[in-house]
């Protein structure tokens, strides 16, 4: 499981792009694609470069001011763990 101390970045095989047809950000990797919701897209875009998970939570929190901090933290960790389970994340655990 990924915790706030880990550092993460999207795996090399992942490409993010905007899909005009659906108006959504899609995450593409070999033979597959995931259509991201708004919150997923926000987190994924921040993972294009390596970041600490703690920092990531701060950045997301700064953008969505109306959600409680605990909810944001859980959303970010859930999303990152879902990506990690698919091998879509490079994770450095400290």
């Amino acid at each position, binding site marked *: 499981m990924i915790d706030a101390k880990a550092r993460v970045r999207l*795996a*090399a*095989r992942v490409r993010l792009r905007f*899909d005009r*047809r659906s108006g959504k950000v899609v995450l*593409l990797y*070999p*033979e597959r694609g995931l259509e991201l919701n708004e919150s997923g897209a926000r987190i994924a875009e921040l993972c294009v470069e390596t970041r600490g998970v703690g920092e990531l939570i701060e950045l997301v929190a700064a953008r969505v001011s109306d959600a409680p901090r605990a909810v944001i933290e859980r959303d970010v960790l859930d999303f990152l763990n879902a990506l990690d389970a*698919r*091998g879509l994340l490079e994770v450095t655990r400290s």
Partner: protein
Amino acid sequence: MTSAGEPLVTPAPRPYALVAELTYRCPLACAYCSNPLELGDASTELDTATWGRVFREAAELGVLQVNLSGGEPLARSDLEALVAEARASELYVNLITSGIPADAARLERLTRAGLDSLQLSVQDTDAGGAAWIAGRDANESKLRTAATARSLGLPLTLNVVLHRGNIARVPAFVALAEELGATRLELANTQYLGWALENRAALLPSRSALEEARRVAREAAERLRGRIEVLFVLPDYYADLPRACMDGWARRYLVVTPNGLALPCHQATSITTLEWQNVREHALPAIWHESPAFRAFRGEDWLPEPCRSCERRAIDFGGCRCQALALTGDVTATDPACVHAPRHDLVVAARLRADAGSEPVPEAPRPLLKLRRRAAG
């Protein structure tokens, strides 16, 4: 109910992937090759500019991924330009290759042109087995291609087509994927169409061999989760219920052949009662939306019994059309792979023969095996 102003025809679904068969030229001659039995010659291949237009039209239709495939796409001298064209249309570009020839400088150029990932076919880890199925052993070249891909940071998928001759080596394929640092391993059983159907008696594995392979693959998928995506595809013949072939006819995939025919699947030219249109004469969106061939088996409306009243009809759409045609002679029949199909006996009989022939696979050369003819060029 249709009121004025509403479209009368259900709009076509959105395709997500384009399989661009760039050429039938290939250094290998696999006995299960999915190219048609009759290959065109290289002089009729689509040129760079036409492929560029096909990529743009595919992207316009909603396609997100392109598989540059063949034959062997490295045989195209303009492959770098084709990769760049596909990237210019924002497609995720997968190169489907035999890894022959292993050419590090070229792979580097392709990566710079925007290649996103490389899928390498592996026929067998055993040299004799590889030569038996493909006409030659090319493992050394494949290993070098994999190493180059890795050093370039190019994500690597290994694709193994499983059959009677190599199915016992699934553990070795898993080990190879780990050793080469692959991110995805496809263990896909042969589907018995085209060349593979011609060679079925030599290729169809027994049920016990298949079960063992499946067990090993499952264990590997579990162990490697998050590191290597391990995919195991059963042969239709042992599945009891058919797959939605290509995720459904003309629903998610588009195939364009080297000479420009647009198809809903690799094998569709075996259906000679449909008229296949060429991208040289028609725009891809027009073919996708309007051509009678693409609409022939789209969705559920055309389904025969027992599919029509079956709860799985929107899951598998009655199975594979090419298989129905090849086995029963009727392209609209329920796929014989289905336990409910009137002609399921055909599949059961083939399975029983595979189980009866339980002796080990004979050494190469094996006269029974027909190898795909190498295309000229």
